[in-house]
């Protein structure tokens, strides 16, 4: 069953861990862009924080010679995503046009099976109805639906921005150029650690970066084919 426009794009993200300063700007940008609710101290302590993107702090070395490394983690947009086949209602599936792992909020019935089967634990669940207290409600993004309680959600690679980029390019009657599409996290990263682009476009920056010898993919051995590539080990290798 070939679909029109299949494999048109292959969106990937390259995150340079040697550049990441752990400033959390991407986390804030992600919340703002995708209408991700802020759950409050108590629920965060309960393990219900709803970050689509969060930064893990990893300590390296023994005291007193310790050093922190930061690792932004989000949905790895697997090409063979384990979350997809287990959903009984196709709420999550492989979008064959953009080659991302899509989540249709309104189809979700909340079995949370996908979250259990995600080796990266990248998915978040709406344990309660979201609240956007004043003035947060003023800045809700109209391009992204607000999810109710009982629905699973996760990083979408800002698919609304991908769509807008394509529409803009079509309106100007041109091909999509590298840099036309920037997810909120990449746009807001002051250190320029997050790069986003189309692997099918040989001119794109990410097409160059994927060949870096510093590149790793998280839990690659599971065969999930993640679309997020981490660059790490700059001290030991030349990037």
């Amino acid at each position: 069953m070939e679909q029109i426009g299949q494999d048109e794009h292959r969106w990937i993200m390259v995150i340079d861990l040697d550049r990441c300063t752990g400033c959390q700007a991407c986390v804030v940008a992600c919340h703002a862009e995708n209408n991700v609710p802020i759950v409050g101290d108590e629920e965060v302590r309960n393990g219900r924080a709803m970050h689509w993107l969060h930064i893990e702090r990893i300590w390296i070395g023994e005291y007193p010679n310790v050093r922190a490394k930061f690792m932004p983690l989000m949905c790895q947009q697997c090409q063979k995503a384990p979350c997809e086949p287990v959903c009984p209602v196709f709420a999550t599936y492989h979008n064959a046009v953009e080659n991302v792992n899509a989540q249709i909020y309104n189809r979700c019935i909340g079995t949370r099976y996908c979250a259990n089967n995600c080796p990266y634990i990248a998915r978040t669940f709406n344990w309660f109805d979201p609240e956007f207290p004043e003035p947060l409600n003023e800045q809700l993004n109209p391009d992204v639906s607000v999810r109710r309680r009982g629905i699973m959600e996760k990083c979408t690679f800002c698919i609304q921005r991908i769509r807008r980029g394509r529409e803009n390019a079509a309106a100007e009657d041109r091909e999509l150029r590298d840099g036309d599409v920037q997810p909120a996290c990449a746009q807001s990263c002051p250190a320029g650690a997050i790069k986003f682009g189309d692997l099918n476009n040989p001119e794109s920056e990410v097409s160059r970066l994927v060949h870096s010898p510093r590149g790793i993919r998280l839990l690659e051995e599971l065969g999930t084919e993640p679309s997020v590539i981490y660059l790490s080990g700059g001290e030991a290798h030349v990037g």
Partner: protein
Amino acid sequence: MSVKAISVVWPETEDPREKLLFDPRPTREMNNMVLDAMTTTSWRYWLVIAVLVVLVLIGIFGAWGYQILQGMGVAGIRRPVYWGVYITNFVFWIGISHSGTFVSAILRVFKAEFRRPFTRAAELMTSFALVVAGMYPLIHLGRTWRFYWMVPYPNQRQLWPNFHSPLEWDMLAIFTYLIGSTLYLYLPLIPDLAMARDYSTGWRGNLYRIMALGWRGTEAEWHHLKTAITIFAFAIIPVMFSVHTIVAWDFGMTMTVGWHSSIFGPYFVVGAIFSGVSAVVTVLLILRKAMRLDYFLRAEHFDALGKIILVFSAAWTYFFFADYLTEWYGGEAVGKELLTLQARGPVAPLWYLMLIFNVAIPLLTLWNKRIRTSVRGMLLITLGINVGMYIERYIIVTGALSRNRLPFNWGAYNPTLIEILISIGSLSTFVLLYALASRVLPLIPVWEVQEGQLSHRLRRIGRQLAPSVSELD
């Protein structure tokens, strides 16, 4: 004691008339025994019913209603343990539902004659356990009010469900099993309903008249019924195996360490029969006392069921150990962490309790006939087994989720009051349904007992009065 007294040992003679099938009673008397047990209710019975109704109201209507209105956050589940007590309860009740089919269908196929008086009591457990089990996927859904999106029917969304998903298999398997086991309960019930119809008046008379469908007992009716029961017995056995296998595949098909195991299917089936048959014994002991069914339910039955439990305890131990050893010897680092968590972590007391209830106690006691036929002993052992099996499911569900391949994503889970109330409410639902049904449906398959008594005779061979069975089919 003198030496003489020990050296001469007379063979222990057992009176065969202690067995139900060698102790026939007139039909009318037997019918009345069954109907009296059904129509007599003490104030204690109504007290129990009242307490159960309150517990159901609190647990199912109150706690579940509150959860639907507030959101799943009122339960203790949290990242990364997205499944908790609800799924544990689901697996547990599906396990209990294996009681009836095993006792009724497998023992029927193998012509195990001791099954006759209690097949119905066990089949009734199957249907009600499935009703309770079927509530859990709904309780557990984030959007319960959208559960019907899983049902395959042509709809305005133009979207069919995803048949790749083990949950979809699960739903259809449970549906098949619920329909199958309820019809399998109903078919052999028809002649007994007709009997009750002929003995009853008033609302009972009307109810039994409708439910007996106009049964008269002609040759053709019996012939169709017996053929159908045989077809059902053979058909329901693979369905029973498939149901718990698919429940196991809900876990086995994932990438989660501690779940992704090919032994899970048979391991769960064995565990389900183990806990199901134990629950049958628990229920039969209670029924025997509460409804005075001593004539029908005798030491021989608990003796036989005790042997089955002994075999399944050994089988469960074998599967458990095969799974454990594989993980211990060559599993992933997370798998080892899980085993450490079970043996030395916060769930360790539960884990050892499980081994005591499921392995140590049954294997050390049930080889002894005196224990197998003791009421108190069997009640404690079988209740213990079901506690043990519940713990097993709890550790499998929540343990494996709390540890995954990325240590910074580890977490913990503790059930909340809401989850506990719903669990108590569902247990009460089961007991309530069973208690009500026990006063409406004839719990003893009278015609099957009589058929058995017809084919069993005592034959004198030399000095022995030997029990003999004739094949009447």
